[in-house]
């Protein structure tokens, strides 16, 4: 066990995970933040993507102990913020994806949304091709991706209008 202090969704928290515990399992099992989904558990599917110190990372490919001192944002942190005029407490990207009917089953959703949020923060003027590349590491088996890209493009447009 290793003692760690970090901030998750703006709030300080502490934990004592085993060294082998991934950040994903720590978030889900120790902090009960089950919005972060685990698909492949070896860095291929992107479902577990969270934001660590401003960058999208795969929480299954990072140990919890490595997040000591970091600022972690999960899908739960977006809704809490309720940024923008989106209403319903959803973040801009979440609301735009809702409005675009981006998702079907919802399994890939948290990873897609977190990757999109991190990418749009750094690239507010991203075009469709750049968005497709940025999301290329996130697998969706329902939609064929078109509705997801539409949602991110809509979010980018709304961000720019604000």
């Amino acid at each position, binding site marked *: 066990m290793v003692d760690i202090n970090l901030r998750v969704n703006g709030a300080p928290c502490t934990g004592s995970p085993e060294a*082998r515990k991934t950040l994903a399992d720590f978030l889900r099992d120790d902090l009960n933040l089950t919005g972060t989904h685990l698909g492949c558990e070896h860095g291929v599917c*992107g479902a577990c993507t969270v934001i660590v110190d401003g*960058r999208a990372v*795969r929480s299954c*490919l*990072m*140990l919890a102990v490595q997040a000591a001192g970091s600022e972690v944002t999960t899908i739960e942190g977006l809704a809490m913020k309720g940024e923008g005029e989106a209403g319903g407490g959803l973040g801009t990207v979440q609301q735009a994806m809702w409005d675009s009917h981006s998702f079907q089953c919802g399994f890939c959703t948290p990873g897609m949304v977190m990757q999109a949020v*991190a*990418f749009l923060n750094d690239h507010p003027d991203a075009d469709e091709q750049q968005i497709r590349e940025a999301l290329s*590491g996130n697998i969706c088996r329902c939609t064929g991706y078109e509705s997801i890209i539409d949602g991110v493009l809509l979010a980018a447009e709304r961000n720019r209008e604000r």
Partner: protein
Amino acid sequence: MKLPPVDYEAPESVPEAVELLAEHQDEASVLAGGQSLIPLLALRLTHPAVLIDINGVDELSGVSADDGWVAIGAMTREYVAEESGTIADAVPLLAAALPLIGHEAIRSRGTVGGSLAHADPAAELPAVARALDAEFVVRGPSGERVIPAAEWFEGFLTTARRPDELLTEVRFPVAGRGTGVSFQEVARRHGDFAIVGLAASLTLSGGAISDARLAFAGLSDVPVRAGDAEDLLVGERPSAELFDEAALRATADIDPPADLHGSADYRKKVAAALVRRGLQAAADDAGERRD
């Protein structure tokens, strides 16, 4: 799957890390960005007794240019290298390859030294290091060694680093005037490992090729340099016919692996096509940089 139980050490300096490696030898795995090691652990393909996590060793991160070389600290994250103006200006082939590694979120954590120490023969950075004759600086209990790229890659996921040594820095030569580059790859999906990849660099002076460098990813258990094709190119003027001939020479003796992504014959055809494309793109790039 979940990772197997493992001990964990987090040194804060290179001497401390080297001491831990000397103590644990090949029972230890060095954890850098973790984008290859953690999947290997999760799939239970490796069973180290202890992880030596060097993420807290600040001195291992950074990019600096000096005396004709660009030195990149082993823990420099791939996204940091991707955003480095020094690398973009001085090592354009590396700059061309970096955005092709994995996906956004992989490059957030993945490191230049980690990829080169992992030595996946299908990865981009090993091919770049081999093409440019990069130098690998390792630190062990008896001091520092510098290993040329030609000797660094010994086999599949195997390098010349000894179990008690730590890769601290990789040095790339600054590209000469008139150099154009291209990194070509064919992959099933953006960000996937290449079925075949090619690092290509051409230096033109007075309209003729004065230096040519070609290295393949994905064709063998190590990155492969195409020396015969390079010899053919030097002294000639760029032309489609020349590049066709270079493609034949570069692929004459290769014996690529076959898997579900492509047969050996297919890989050979792709490799030849990449040589033609890569050389043309590098020649065009050299022209654009001169203008």
